[in-house]
Each structure stands twice: as C-alpha cells, then as structure tokens.
C-alpha cells in the first residue's frame, strides 16, 4: 500500500505519535465506505471522546473534595461551610451528582462559579472570543511560517537551509512559550518600546468598543466595525507579540510536519515517474509532492489544536490577554473548581469538534475516500 500516510516513512520524533501510525481510526480511508458513512462514523466518535474526558475530569476533581470546601475552606466557619455544601448538593453520593452533572451538561448548564458567582456559560462566552482571536492569529503565523519553510527545508534536504531551519525548529520547541513571550516582551515592549506590553487593546479602544450595538467580543472585528484606523492599528499592535509567541511554537511543529511529509512524497515513485517525464523540479514540489503530503499534514495539524490551546493558556497569562486561558489561571489561583471544570469541558468539546472537522476536510481532499 502506498498511501501518502505510509509515505511519511521517515518518522519525525517531535511530531505527535499518531502521525507515525497511519490508520488511527478503524475503518478509515477504506474504499467502499463512502464519504457519508465515514463522516457519520467520525462524528459519532466525538461522543465517546468528550464523554471520557468529562467523566475523567469530573471524578478527578471530586477526588479533591467538594468545590465549595476547596474554594471557601478556611474563609467560612465549618457550620456555614456545611450549609453551603448541603445547599449545593455536594453532600450527596458522588454517582448521583455525576448523573445530575451529565444531565445539566446536556442542557448546557455548567453551574455557577464560586469565587465570583457567575454562570460558567457566561464566563465561557465572555472570554472564549478572546481565545478564539488569539488562536486564529497564532494559526496565521504558524501556517505562514510552517508551510513555505517546511517546503524549503524538504527541497534542500540535508543541505544548509534545511540544517538551519531544523535547528531553529528545535530551538522553537525547546523554548517554553511563556519564556519566549517574556523575552519578546522584554525586547520589543520594554526595551525598544515598539509594541504594547500586555492586553488586547488600549483603554481608549476598549472604551470605544462600548459604543458598539453588537460587540462581537473579537477585538479586530469590533475595531473594523468602528471603522477607526487608529483603533484597528492599536488592536493589531496588541496582537503581534502574543500571536508571534504562540504562532512560532506551533509554526516550528508545522514546519517539521510539512518537511517530513514532503520528503516522503518527494522520494515516492510517482514523483520520480513525473520527473522521468520531464516535469520541472518546482512543479514536482508544488503539485506532485505537495498535494499527497497535504492529507497527513492536515490530519496532524488537527491534533496540534490541543497543543495550541495548551500554549494559549500560558501565552494569555504572559500577556494578560483576557481569554479563557487567562481566566483559567485566575480561577485556579482562587481554587474555583466549578469554573475550572467548565473551562476544561469546553476545551474538550472544542478539541473533539476541531479534530472531526479536520478529518472530514482531509477526507474531502483524498479521492480514495471521496469516490
């Protein structure tokens, strides 16, 4: 079998293991199943993934005791504490609480935070957009770095451009996101003063946003709504350092991913056959080798969403970018486990759905699944 997945023969250790294991899902990329069947099966796989994570997180969290004692223990008298615990139903058997929790979850009710008494869903919608914006910018940086430089490295395999790019990618991997963020901040914000130190927009822009009838919560969209170039510029300037911090980390991984898969397809029989017919090297790279390599690249990029979100938590904390990651760190400090659990569940759903979408996109590109 010479599917492109298999052709990614040269395993890259820094890439997720699943990229080295071609058929992660049973029944996948099999002929005869049809696209609709594949999509359906793949969609059904979201359910166990989310269910397992929700269950895991629920029971792990409950192992530490009830959320109210965790958050307010020491601040209230034992009697008051017991009363609050009883009122919230945390003194009932854990299984009863679990079933009730699942029921609430299905209705979209994630409870109320303990530290600031807000519905968790409200927290998620309020801060989720900021995280969405950060991951979007980071993804733009990552793709802009990863794909062209990955192709370049593959083309000049084992020569100096490849060596330099590989070393940079390893360096990118070895630098913790928050440290990279701190160094960028130290140099470009504190030292040179070119860019703002933290936040999503300056105070004047934030005030301008309050005039909007339908604020989207996404700074750049709101700035465009306002139509004020200075606000747009301000928002973009704020996004540069966080996007670079998170994007370069992911970009390094994308670079390696593209390089590995391109090297695989570049040494394949069909590229050699095209070469034997006089097709030029550039066209070989951009058409014959790139497209088959794209399928595993897209699949593995989907798995990188998890890494991106984990990095977002650290990046947001570094740049006081008030998104879910930043709030997660805040709630962790406050020991507000209801809020923590809510955020973790949302991220689990996001990861599962993104992976589904990515797999379907990969399947759409692959004619062996389409026909």
């Amino acid at each position, binding site marked *: 079998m010479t599917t492109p997945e298999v052709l990614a023969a040269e*395993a890259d250790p820094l890439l997720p*293991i699943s990229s080295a294991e071609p058929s992660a899902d049973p029944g996948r990329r099999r002929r005869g199943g049809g696209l609709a069947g594949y999509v359906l099966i793949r969609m059904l796989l979201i359910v166990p993934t989310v269910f397992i994570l929700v269950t895991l997180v629920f029971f792990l969290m409950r192992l530490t005791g009830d959320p109210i004692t965790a958050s307010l223990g020491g601040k209230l008298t034992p009697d008051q504490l017991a009363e609050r615990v009883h009122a919230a139903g945390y003194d009932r058997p854990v299984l009863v609480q679990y079933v009730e929790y699942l029921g609430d979850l299905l209705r979209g009710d994630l409870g109320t935070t303990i530290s600031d008494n807000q519905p968790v869903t409200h927290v998620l919608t309020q801060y989720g957009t900021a995280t969405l914006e950060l991951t979007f910018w980071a993804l733009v940086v990552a793709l802009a770095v990863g794909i062209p430089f990955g192709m370049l490295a593959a083309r000049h395999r084992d020569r100096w451009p490849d060596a330099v790019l590989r070393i940079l990618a390893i360096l990118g991997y070895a630098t913790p996101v928050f440290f990279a963020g701190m160094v960028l901040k130290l140099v470009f914000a504190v030292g040179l003063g070119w860019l703002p130190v933290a936040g999503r927009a300056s105070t004047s822009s934030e005030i301008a946003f309050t005039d909007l009838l339908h604020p989207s919560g996404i700074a750049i969209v709101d700035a465009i709504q306002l139509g004020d170039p200075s606000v747009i510029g301000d928002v973009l300037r704020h996004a540069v350092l966080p996007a670079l911090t998170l994007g370069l980390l992911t970009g390094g991984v994308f670079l390696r991913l593209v390089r590995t898969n391109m090297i695989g397809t570049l040494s394949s*029989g069909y590229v050699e056959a095209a070469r034997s017919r006089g097709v030029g090297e550039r066209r070989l790279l951009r058409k014959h080798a790139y497209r088959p390599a794209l399928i595993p690249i897209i699949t593995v990029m989907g798995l990188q969403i998890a890494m991106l979100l984990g990095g977002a938590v650290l990046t947001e904390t570094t740049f006081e970018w008030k998104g879910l990651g930043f709030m997660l760190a805040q709630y962790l400090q406050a020991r507000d486990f209801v809020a923590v659990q809510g955020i973790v569940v949302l991220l689990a759903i996001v990861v599962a759905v993104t992976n589904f979408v990515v797999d379907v996109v990969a399947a759409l590109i692959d004619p062996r699944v389409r026909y």
Partner: protein
Amino acid sequence: MPRILTRALGPLRRSTGLQRGMLVTGLVLTALLVLVALFAPVLAPYGFNQLRDAGGPFGAQQHPSGSHLLGTTVGGYDVLSRTLFGARTAVLVIVVAIVASILVGVALGLVAGYFGGWLDRILVVIADAIYAFPSLLLAIVLSIVISHGQSQLWGGILAAALSITVVFVPQYLRVVRAEVLRVKTEAFVDAARVIGSGDVRIMLRHVLRNSTRTLPVIVTLNASEAILTLAGLGFLGFGIEPTAAAEWGYDLNKALADVTSGIWWTAIPPGIAIVLAVLGITLVGESLNDLADPRLRRRRGLRRTAGAADDRALEPDGVPRMTTTKSDPARAGADDAPAVVSIRDLSVSFATDDGAVEAVRDVSLEVRQGEILAVVGESGSGKTVTARSVLRLLPENATTRGAVVLRSRDRERAYDVASLDHAGLRQARGTDVAMVFQEPSAVLNPVYPVGWQIEEGLRAHRRLSRTERRAAAVDVLRRVGIPEPEVRVDHYPHQFSGGQKQRIVIAMALALDPGLIVADEPTTALDVTVQAEILDLLRRCRDEFGASVLLITHNMGVVADLADRVVVMHDGRVVEQAPVRDLFRSPREEYTRELLAAVPSLEPVTSARPGAPAATPVPNSRHRPQGSQAQGQPAIEARELVVTYPGRLGRPGATAVDHVDLTLAPGEVLGLVGESGSGKTTIGRAIAGLTPATGGSLRVLGTEVRGARGRALRAVRPRIGFVFQDPGTSFNPLLTVGDGVAEPLVVHGRAANPAAARDRVVELLESVHLTAEHARRYPHELSGGQRQRASLARALALEPDLVIADEPTSALDVSVQARVLELFADLHARLGFACLFISHDLAVVDQVADRIAVLHRGRVVEEGSPATVLRRPEDPYTQRLVASVPVPDPVEQARRRTERLAARG
C-alpha cells in the same frame, strides 16, 4: 559492560557532519544537566532557599553583583543558586515520570496490540481522548488532585511526575501498540505460532523485544516534554513551594512582573536553563532517531551481499569474459540500424558508509532503432542501475563514468545524457526517452486523476490548449486499451485494476511519442494472465508506436516472449549479448548456460501441441516415499472448506476460500497454484491454524481443526512444519539462527533450552547444507537462500508428517531457487513428509508436485496430475493460466503466443 559502552557509542561513530554536531551538542548539554543536578550543592554559592548570610538579608531584586552573580529574585533568593538547584528538580521529575510511564504504557500497549479485540478498542479510545486533550490542562487537573496544587519537595515532585506520567502513558501505549501490530504481522511471529509457542512466550520472546526499538527516542523526547510541562505547571502556580525546592517555572512566574519593569536577570537565567536542558535532550533524541534505523538497514544489506556468494551454484570462475558483439554473425543484418541509445563503458558506483560500492562496471550496450533489447540478470547484477542511467534517474550518492549517448526522436541529434545540464535533461526525459516502472500503484499519484497525470508530461514539453491536452490524454488511453477513455480519463488511480494501472503507466510513457522506452521489470508485480496482456502491449509500443524498448527483467520467459536481442548481466558486468534465439539455443558463456539451466520450465511439455498424442501420464512418483507412511489417514482432508475474513463495521466479509474440497495423502506433494487473491495462502494458513476456518470441515493429520483451540491444536502442531515466503522476515531478527531453529525443540520440550538443542540444531543445519558456524549468526547476516534453507531446517526440526510451504522460493533468484528446490526434493525423498506446496509459479510446481490443484477466486477449478492439469487442462481458466505463462524458449513461446492470440480472436 564494555559491550554496552560500544553499543552506546555506536550512534556517535555512525554519525557524520551536521548529525554528529547535533548529537555531540546534545550529549554535552545533557551531561551538563545531570552533572549540575548531582553537584548543585557544590556549585551553587548559596542554598536555593537561603535568604540571608552572615552579611544580613540578600534583599529583593538586587542587580547582578560580585556577591550575587545573577542578582536576586523578588523573593530575595540568589538567582544563580536557584537556577543551578532547579536542575535537580527537573532531573528527579524526569526520572520518576519516565520510569512510571514506561512501565504502565509498555504493558498496556503490548496487551492492547497483541490481543486486540474490545480491550484494545477501549484502551485506544481512552488513550486517544486523553491524547487529543491539551496535556498541560490535564497535568493541572491531576496536580490539583494529587497535591491540592501546592506542596513540599517529595509531594510536589511526585505530583508533577505523576501528572506528567498520565499524559505520557497514552503515547507509549500508542507507540508500542503500533509497533506490536507491525511486528505481529511479520512472518517470524506466525512462525512461532505455527511451532506451537504460547501467547506469553511469543509476547515476551518475539514481540516485546522487537517492539521497543523506538523507545529510546520517545524516552528522550518525553524527558524534554517533562521539563516543559513541569515548567508550565510552575508558571501557572502549581509548582513546588520555593522553600521546598528550586523550580524554574515557578521562578519564571515570579519574574513575569519583573519583566514589565525591565528587570531581566530574574527571568533570563531560569529560562535559558530550560531551553538548554530541553535542547540538549531533544538533540540526543533527534539524532538517535535519525541514526537508528535506515543506516542499520543499509549495513545489513551490505553484509548480506558478502554472504550471497554462497548462494551461487553458478559462480563463474574468475571474471566472465564479455562476448564481443562484433564477432556475432547472427546479428550482422541488424547492424545497419542506427542506435537509439548507445551506452559506452558505463560504470556506476554508490558512496555508502562502508566506502564506494560498484554497481555497474564498464558496461557497453546499444539499443537499435525498432528493437526490443532485454537486459537480464539476477539481483545485484546492475541491470536496473544501467537502465536508470539512461534517464539519469540515479540517487544522489551515485557516481557515473562513461557515456550514455541518446539519439533524439527526430534522429537529428545525439547527445551524452551524462553531460546534459538541468534544462537539457528535462527536455530529454519524456520526449526522447520514457520510463515504465515495476510497481504501477506506486508510480501513479493517488490524489490526481490519471488524465491530469498523463497531461503533466504534455504540459512540460508542448504548448497545447487545455482541450488539446485532454484529447491527447483520451487518445493515448484508448490506444493502450483502456475502455471508455473519455470517462476513465477523470478517474483516480485507485479506481483501476493492477493491469489497467500498468497500461496507464505505459500510456504516460507513450504520450509524447518517445523514441525509446525503458521498461524496468514492467510485469513483475502482475499476475501471469495480466502479464501476458502487458507484454502484448509493450510489443505494440514497438510495432505500432515505433518506439525502441530497453527491457529490464529477471524472467527468462518474458525475455523469450518479447526480446529481439538479449544482454546478460552478472555482478555489474555484461557477460554475454546475443540475438534471443541464439542465446537460448547456444549460450556461449558458462554463466548464461547455468542461468538458463536453473530456470524451471513448462517447456518439456510439448505434448500440448494440437494433434500430438496425449503424453503418457508420467508416474509422478519421483519423491514417493517407500514404506509405511503411504497408507493410513490423509494428512489433510478438507470438505466444503470456507474461510471468510470478517467485514468492517457490519459490512459483509470477504470469502477467501469458497467450499473447497482437498485431500493430501501421506507422503504426497500437492501443488496449490493460483493468482493473487485466489485463496491459496489462506488455505495454507487455515491448515496451520493461523487463520480460522469458518465453514465446512478441515481435518489435519486426523484432527478437526475448525473450531479447535488450545490443547487440540497444540497436539497437532509439532507434526506440522511451515516454510514462509519471505526469508527476510521469518526469523526473529534478535535471535541467532541457531536459536531460531531450536525454538520448536524447546517449545515442545525436546530440549530444555537452545543450548541443549545444539547438537540437533547442527544436525538439522547440516541436512540443509549449512554449518554449525551459521547457527551463531543473526538472520540478517545470512543470504536469502541460506535463510530459506534454515527455514526449511526449522520446519523439519520435529520431523513433521506435514509440511506447508507457502511460496518458499518466490523471493529468491532463479539459481538460488534451483538449489532450494533440489534440496527440498532431496529431503522429501529422505523424510517422506506430506507437503502442501503453494506457489504462483506453474513451472516450479510442475517440478515438485505429485498432484496439482488450481485455485481461482477461492474455488478449486481443476485438480489432477501435473501431466493433465498443466498439459491438457480442461477448465477454461486453467487453460488461460497455462497459456499465459511465457516459456523460456523463444521459438516455442512465439508459437504459444500466436496460439493464444488466435484463441482470443
């Protein structure tokens, strides 16, 4: 100990250039990390939680100075000391986390991969769910659970380590599981199962050790990930209390606020420490991964050629003299035709780790206008390298000497391919010379329609409009015999059969109407009935398209069918060249003579000639054993045997064997022939208990095998020997050949351990013409033929009543095959076992079998003696099959071809 040392240094010695630089840097940095961790108390000027010394408190956020080289933190600690002590915490966490995750992950992966089933499914779904989740968040949740988020030294380290462990376990599980699944399909695991080894023995002795080769790489990479996760936890406030241990992430968290006010010295040192530690470990892992496999494999290849000499019964004495073409009167008439390509004194060598290897030495040959020239030779003869040098399609480590003069299609120009620049080479490829490859499914790009791929050649060389290109693609598809080309032009490669794919590959070569087509083993990957059609098509390339053909093949039948003239190559040199009829009638060189003699042939079977009297049924009792075993119960008795492979996700399964009746008498050799997908291998596997029979009845040596398990099977197994197709994989690469041959003896209690079985092993090896010395070698140090003989020895170790040989000679060169077959016949005559001989090669089966059964799509279509089945077949499929086999005799083959084409109309 020294052995461990040399093994550890192995990667370093094998590395070169950049790789060595990376590895050395990585090793130095890693060593530094460990040394700092060990000697932190000596190296650090202060303790990690020291706030004051004799001179009073250090003070917060002090600039670097003589007493505090890197200043102090916001909490008033010495930065340098905390950075150095941080290495201790990091190393401790790495060690605990990795040991724990290996123990759990490897065990789970082994069980999941080996047993499969629902347990596997559940483990994989859970592992996937955990794996898809941001690992840092999971670690946070776990560290809340384990330590409530803050803790003292051991509590903190354990919390961090265990959080990291849970994140890593799914990775180990997946890697080991994937490896186990790979190893499980290798023939040596089947071999162990056939021998009758239990699951635990197979898992520990054969699977586990072969599944852990990627672990060193994963371990190093997880070590770096552990440092990063630990730092991330610390940065988010889930680290270890500063009074309990120094932790880089925690210090960076505290330094975050400093950065805004321009205080750099609290952030940079711990940050750099993390970067260096992770960089060091990652570089080691990265280099190990680079070095681990491919190079080892290449070395094995080289060693194998060293042993291969032993295979060659036909080793020519000294260097074969090249028969000069000039002295050959038979081809005088063709001399006038101009050469399309003329290769002069071509030498090609490859730079390898062990110095230059010469693949082609001073080869001269030419292909004339309208001629089909076949280059034949066994593996390693240099024929493929010679062919590829015509298009200069050689790997980068190849060095070429000599000239390859190619004539342009219009015959106006002739040029040396070796001296072309890049643009000239591109111009030549496709227009003046095109190539047809061996494996059609590998040379078609799976994600583009075939029409697009044909058009690529046109796009590269001609200015045509979109519609013109498409019309040209449709036209060439029609000419190579693809039905409905207007529709099929938009189809993707996977929508075509193997034979059609090869037609498309030929269409691509023909699209630009090149003067020369180089065809490298164009039919080797195809079934024999398809092969006949592709050979016809190649002949049409010459007859109708006017292309000359340089044909590379190892198959003498193909040569006899297609070639006008033949070049025989051996060991990189041209041994002989002659017109095809001359070569087969009167080969000049000893090597050619022996090569031709080694080719098994259906040819003596001339009785199939119409009108000729039916050949007297030869009493095919060549190997009939004398005496006892001839009577008694049959070795195999299959009645209405059905084997169905389960379908996926509720889809109907595939029926590989469909109501087959077979009987094998004691001492008899039954040849089971058929094309790919006919079910012949499945029958063999069902008999050996490797694949369950799903219907009918299957009695093996008197025991019903269908539905049998455990004890019943174990009682039969020692009486069955199995010889596998690929000698490369049927021995566990980590056991010596002697230990491998001893396996059945040990498993069935004939010997306590391999050492005790030594005498018997040597005796067995000698019976297959190997020596005690071979017993000490590892499988990769033997040649293919030697391994297949060792495989025979292992199959015969318990003196079985039944031997199943599944394509035992298909992977071997003809001369080696001849020797193995001879040995087989010998042993059979001596030991008198019954044998099911599975092969796709009718000529081989004809040579060894007493009786032949022909399988087609899971059913037996014809059964009988070789004399009837191969000479006077009655079933239409068998007739077609027999007619399709090219015989190594140009005269006879020409007659057969005419007959076959006439029969087809």
